[in-house]
């Protein structure tokens, strides 16, 4: 068993599986965020109540711990693997093959992932930090007013653009990542190949697009 846990294949599986959990998290996160489309006070109230629930409910707490663990696991296993594999070839080719034999995304997941991480840090600083530690105001119903923080943040065009671009990066990351997990787990058999391929593509397209629509919507409605 020991060799299993030390194998590159197991580490890769861990990286993939944790990534897959993060995709599930993304879906949940997205569903919550869709409440930002609710206009007016009702929207503000519901969103802030939701924010309260998400920061206090013990089950959600547990889920968030799992999420953080997955992020760390995803990053750590990847770093270990990248370091390990970087030792597999000291001398690089003079003439690069470009994208003749594989997609750009598949070869640059680490760069894409790092960009996503940068986004996550900024994102957490803007909202999660404000919610927990920031000088955040209360809304008319006495809840922390994360809704206003959000709406205010997306008044800035550059900030909206940053979000939209980041979602583009996430999409490319997911495009390769989601499909790849099923290959690594060994379940992308010929029978399920198209299903997995298309679903992964769908996820990679829909989730980031939906996420990106939120800041655009907020920005546009405030013009």
């Amino acid at each position, binding site marked *: *068993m020991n*060799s*299993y846990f*030390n*194998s*590159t*294949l*197991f*580490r*890769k*599986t861990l990286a993939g599986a944790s990534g897959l959990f993060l995709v599930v998290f993304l879906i949940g996160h997205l569903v919550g965020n869709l409440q930002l489309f609710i206009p007016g006070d009702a929207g503000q109230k519901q969103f802030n109540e939701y924010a309260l629930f998400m920061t206090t409910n013990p089950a959600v707490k547990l889920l968030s711990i799992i999420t953080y663990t997955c992020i760390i696991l995803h990053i750590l296993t990847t770093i270990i*693997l990248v370091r*390990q*594999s*970087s*030792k*597999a*070839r*000291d*001398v*690089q*080719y*003079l*003439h*690069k*093959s*470009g994208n*003749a*034999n*594989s*997609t750009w995304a*598949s*070869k640059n*997941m680490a760069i894409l992932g790092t960009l996503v991480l940068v986004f996550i840090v900024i994102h957490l600083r803007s909202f999660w930090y404000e919610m927990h530690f920031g000088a955040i105001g209360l809304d008319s119903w006495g809840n922390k007013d994360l809704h206003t923080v959000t709406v205010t943040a997306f008044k800035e065009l550059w900030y909206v653009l940053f979000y939209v671009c980041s979602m583009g990066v996430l999409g490319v990351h997911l495009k*390769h990542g989601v*499909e*790849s997990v099923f*290959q*690594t*787990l*060994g*379940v*992308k*058999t*010929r029978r399920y190949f198209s299903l997995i391929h298309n679903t992964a593509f769908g996820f990679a397209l829909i989730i980031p697009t939906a996420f990106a629509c939120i800041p655009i919507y907020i920005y546009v409605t405030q013009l």
Partner: protein
Amino acid sequence: MDTLKLELKIWRQDSPKDKGEFKTYKVDGLNTHMSFLEMLDVLNEQLIESDSEPVAFDHDCREGICGMCSMVINGRPHGPLKGTTTCQLHMRHFNDGDTITIEPWRANSFPVIKDLVVDRSSFDRIIQAGGYISVNTGSAPDGNAMPIGKEVAEEAFDAAACIGCGACVAACKNASASLFVAAKVSQLALLPQGQAERDDRVVNMVSKMDQEGFGHCTNTGACEAECPKEISVEYIRKLNWEYHRSNIKG
């Protein structure tokens, strides 16, 4: 008859310890029907004539089956053509005046011996770790004693077609040997004869692959794209499955 004039940028390295460098050569009057290796033969004749050492490269059958030839041509293992070994690549696929860069397989598990010749004995060691069915000579039952469905036999064959050239490793950004290992593991896991040692085989071969210093698989698919026998990454999927299955069973 069309002839070609080419500039060749070739990796020259005298011995495993030598640092190595690229050198540029010009060859002229090449017949377009020549194979790529015959073009190098012409260069070597030219080098011998001018008292220089010819370029060392591995080659043997020159019909695409022995797996000996191994060079990265303009960044592509075995050159730009799909499903082709270097020895089957012909000069008609190049243009007059082209500059061609020729490099050895690059992977720490395939150390350069000289010029374009690399040491692929790590592949042999992976096979020795379990890429066989333990059956002593003379102890086999009748060939028809165990029926094997045509489709299974065909699928096993597709995997068994691997020529062990190492293009998959050369093409992979992580120098992973997954496709090579997957081909052998899948062939034997598919066939009923391979069942007795199925679990140990995959565990031992994968751990040997790691020990030999090959990188991990990130599913870029470059191996399949460059494999001269077009072996599918579906077998890597199968390898992964076999590996998890065996380990989880314990």
